[in-house]
């Protein structure tokens, strides 16, 4: 509008006001100009913001969107992973969730990459993620994309068994909301969110806390209380640049300890997490884009009463376990740990001709960890990587994805992780995908540097004698994706074989010194194969849906190279009657603890079913059914109770009240394990493994205004 232009000018200077008052601007008052036809617009739906349709994706992928998050009634990200076919979700205790595809070797499930808006939250010292103190509110999640398979070419280093890619809501999330949750087991959550859009700046702020008592406080001290703050701002100085700023923090108190085990006394651990991320996106006139991201994350935590000598903690003086006669007081200490990560990444998305899209870039990282009592000193690693990934539309119906990532892991190893996949659309609705993908997992600091002459991890550890090499995975898969629009139905199915080599496992008895320390070594190889399927049915114009997933898998493993003391013929100094030699003890350890158990560490059958039914404008009913066959994590000995079959039904009923166009409220009731089919959990000792997951429920009231 010419008129608007006049007004805009007047905002600048007083001089222009005076000038314009005298200029013939009024002559054309209210005459719409043609500017609107020629005006440049900010490129909003950039290539990196658009989600790739499943039928074009180079890997098997599960997308959990806001509707599913809401319908599930889940309060945390790990629980949402129950909706991913084949995903193992376990709990060392309520505040230490374990999430992994295929299987996990211990509570530090470290064979997946976890990203929040492209920022890796995989922790340098142990790998895995500290899910409890994630500086993120579930209400701020836009969607979660879970890649089920290695994906280093697209998601970077450690995208080994898979990738959990959490995408948070854009800065442009308008309005305000407050939410309060209260239920049994002291479930008590609250959050407040606010978002505003200004001329060239959008922002959202959210703050909240989540807390509950945990599972069973007569056995476990696993209550948790986390306060979270988040800010995201997006500044758009012009149509082709935008600056995204994110920062957040969490701090919490987490119960630790097992009743009746003085060496694991009831105590409260505290933890703080912080992150800052700045991302600059430039869209070129060709719609190609360049994105530069700088991020910093840090986490510290304090355990005020950590046992470093279990015999001493139990009051046992002398003997092999406590040769220095440590008193109870001397056997406990406090441990303050700190880790941080800085990362700089450049990513370019380029359209090459009509049929090729190339994504390429690179990044440098600095990982730092200071873990006294576990590492002899603080460690800093400086890995870097470059990557390229081309999506070639060979014909209208055929898409070839080729890509690779080359990395230097900062521990002296350089790896290349190529990937190729071919998607063929027989019709636009029916697609078959063939894929071969590789990835490597670098040893985590704990595997490479653990140097502990204490019982924090059960016994003494020394750094490996043979330098560790990265684990490797090769995945082959064939998938089918079908859309049946007339039936409102879609199907996503695949079969895969994943071969893992150079698997890093405990190296038993690397030295025959007094403490008989363990270490880590590339000793195993494993194979996982399975089939997975997800079916979706929508009705009621998409307001109601049913998502059903099923996964079958099997796994096997064996020694690929021999542990250090495997051939040692010296008599076993600890139990000479039980083992003929040290080598025999090591041999039996691998046989009974790992390979006899391995097939049990993989969930053979699992399924989930999420139903959401809208009834009119105001009522919504949803039900989630989760099935998981018996499973035993590798570090759970055969004499400890495994995780028995889980059959769990969660229900949610919500009613919406509309006050006026601006304001509405929702009251929701969630009941988990409604049928009281209680099930056992992950635990390395019976007292913990036998804690049951019992029925629990809560009410949530949300007000949007």
């Amino acid at each position, binding site marked *: *509008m*010419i008129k*608007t232009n006049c007004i805009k000018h007047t905002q600048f200077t007083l001089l222009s006001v005076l000038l314009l008052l005298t200029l013939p601007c009024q*002559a*054309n008052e*209210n*005459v*719409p*100009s*043609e*500017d*609107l*036809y*020629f*005006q*440049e*617009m*900010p*490129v*909003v*739906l950039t*290539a990196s913001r*658009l*989600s*790739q*349709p499943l039928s*074009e994706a180079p890997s098997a992928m599960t997308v959990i969107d806001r509707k599913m998050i809401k319908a599930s009634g889940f309060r945390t990200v790990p629980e949402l992973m129950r909706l991913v076919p084949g995903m193992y979700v376990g709990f060392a205790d309520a505040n230490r969730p374990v999430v992994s595809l295929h299987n996990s070797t211990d509570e530090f499930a470290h064979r997946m990459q976890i990203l929040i808006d492209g920022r890796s939250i995989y922790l340098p010292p142990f790998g895995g993620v500290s899910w409890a103190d994630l500086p993120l509110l579930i209400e701020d999640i*836009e969607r979660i994309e879970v890649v089920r398979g290695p994906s280093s070419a697209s998601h970077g280093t450690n995208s080994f068994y898979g990738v959990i890619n959490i995408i948070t809501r*854009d800065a*442009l999330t*308008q*309005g305000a909301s407050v939410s309060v949750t209260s239920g049994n087991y002291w479930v008590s959550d609250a959050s407040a969110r606010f978002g505003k*859009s*200004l*001329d*060239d700046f*959008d922002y959202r702020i959210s703050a909240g806390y989540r807390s509950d008592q945990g599972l069973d406080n007569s056995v476990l001290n696993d209550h948790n209380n986390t306060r979270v703050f988040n800010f995201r701002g997006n500044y*758009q100085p012009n*149509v082709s640049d935008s600056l995204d700023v994110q920062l957040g923090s969490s701090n919490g108190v987490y119960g630790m300890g097992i009743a009746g085990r003085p060496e694991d006394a009831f105590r409260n651990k505290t933890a703080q997490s912080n992150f800052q991320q700045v991302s600059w996106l430039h869209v070129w006139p060709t*719609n190609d884009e360049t994105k530069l991201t700088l991020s910093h994350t840090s986490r510290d935590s304090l355990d005020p009463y950590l046992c470093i000598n279990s015999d001493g903690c139990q009051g046992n003086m002398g003997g092999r376990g406590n040769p220095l006669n440590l008193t109870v007081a001397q056997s406990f200490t406090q441990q303050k740990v700190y880790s941080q990560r800085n990362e700089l990444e450049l990513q370019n998305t380029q359209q090459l001709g009509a049929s090729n899209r190339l994504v390429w870039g690179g990044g440098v990282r600095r990982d730092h960890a200071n873990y006294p009592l576990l590492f002899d000193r603080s460690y800093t690693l400086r890995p870097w990587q470059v990557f390229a990934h081309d999506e070639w539309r060979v014909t209208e119906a055929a898409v070839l994805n080729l890509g690779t990532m080359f990395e230097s892991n900062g521990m002296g190893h350089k790896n290349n992780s190529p990937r190729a996949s071919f998607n063929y659309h027989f019709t*636009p609705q029916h697609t078959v995908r063939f894929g071969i993908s590789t990835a490597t997992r670098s040893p985590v600091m704990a595997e490479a540097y653990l140097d502990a002459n204490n019982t924090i991890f059960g016994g003494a550890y020394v750094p490996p004698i043979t330098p560790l090499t990265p684990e490797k995975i090769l995945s082959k898969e064939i998938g089918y994706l079908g*859309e049946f629009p007339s039936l409102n139905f879609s199907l996503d199915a695949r079969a895969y074989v994943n071969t893992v080599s150079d698997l890093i496992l405990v190296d038993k008895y690397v030295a025959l010194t007094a403490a008989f320390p363990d270490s880590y070594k590339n000793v195993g190889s494993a194979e996982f194969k399975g089939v997975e399927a997800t079916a979706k049915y929508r009705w009621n114009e998409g307001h109601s849906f049913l998502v059903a997933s099923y996964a079958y898998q099997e796994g096997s493993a064996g020694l690929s190279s021999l542990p250090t003391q495997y051939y040692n013929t010296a008599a076993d100094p600890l139990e000479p009657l039980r083992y003929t030699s040290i080598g025999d003890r090591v041999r039996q350890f691998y046989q009974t603890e790992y390979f006899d158990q391995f097939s049990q560490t993989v969930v053979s059958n699992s399924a989930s079913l999420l139903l959401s039914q809208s009834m009119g404008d105001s009522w919504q009913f949803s039900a989630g059914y989760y099935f998981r066959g018996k499973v035993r994590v590798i570090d759970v000995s055969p004499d400890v109770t495994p995780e028995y079959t889980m059959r769990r039904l969660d229900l949610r009923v919500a009613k919406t009240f509309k006050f006026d*166009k*601006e304001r509405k409220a929702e009251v929701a009731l969630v009941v988990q394990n409604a049928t009281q089919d209680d099930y056992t959990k992950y635990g390395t000792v019976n007292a913990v493994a036998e804690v049951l997951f019992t029925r629990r429920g809560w009410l949530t009231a949300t007000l949007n205004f």
Partner: protein
Amino acid sequence: MKRYLFVIALLLLAFSAQAKSLRVTVLLAEEGASYSEFARSFAAEAARNNLSLSIDQTSSLPQETDLLVAVGIKSAAMALNSRFPVLVVLVSKAGFVKLQHQILDHLENNIFSAIYLDQPSRRQVDLITVALPNVKNVGLFVSAQSADMTSLRKAMTESRLVLHEQQLESDETLHRDLHSLLQKSEILFAIPDAQIYNSSTMRNILLETYRSGIPIIGFSPAYVRAGALCAVFSTPEQIAKQAVSQARQFAESGRLSAIQYPSEFEVMVNPQVARSLGIDIKDAATLVRQMNAATVAGGRK
């Protein structure tokens, strides 16, 4: 013999050029990439047609000329107050109509015509039916400032589309009003209305529609680049072609045709957005062909 003919032809050409040379002045009261692109294309197109125009380019009214080609609404306002015949180009229909009303009383010259930037309603609706044949419910976001929608409503009804109109109540309610419109619509049909669609609201609108899985039909290439699914529009070059043919006619007959919509048009598609929304859309060239065929079929009826 052949040589003779050639020389005669040359002489004839030279003579006619001299005799019929029309002084055309391209008036550019405002600077802008599209305006200068028009001016460039106009000159090039005239040259290509061996049209004997002597073209001047100016930012103020000339002393003397045979035809003023006024580019944009500011030039139009200036030109229509002159005594020369005027061809107005690169203006929106709403702008031109309003301008005409404002200066009608003291309109000195009565030889004028225009080529609008707007696409005829029929063509806009054809884009929907050709690109998205399964779509029934079209969302239209309008404000108090929006142009007259009568012919668009009519064209939609003729194509058996259901139009859902939502009035923007105020700038503050944009998000809410859009949300309630998207509940009913399968596509959002954008119109040139700065109160609704401007560079600061565009993020909001595109993200909200994308979250709802609803594509936007835009009206300029910038919309498609920003994230609209597709748009039909005419480039300054296409308009220049049409303007040259008007100028040729003026040179021959001394008359200008009635006000026209653009005759040639282009379609632009954003394939990334289409794929991400799971929309199976044909390429731009096919859409243009099918829209032309639809026009022919519609004309026969």
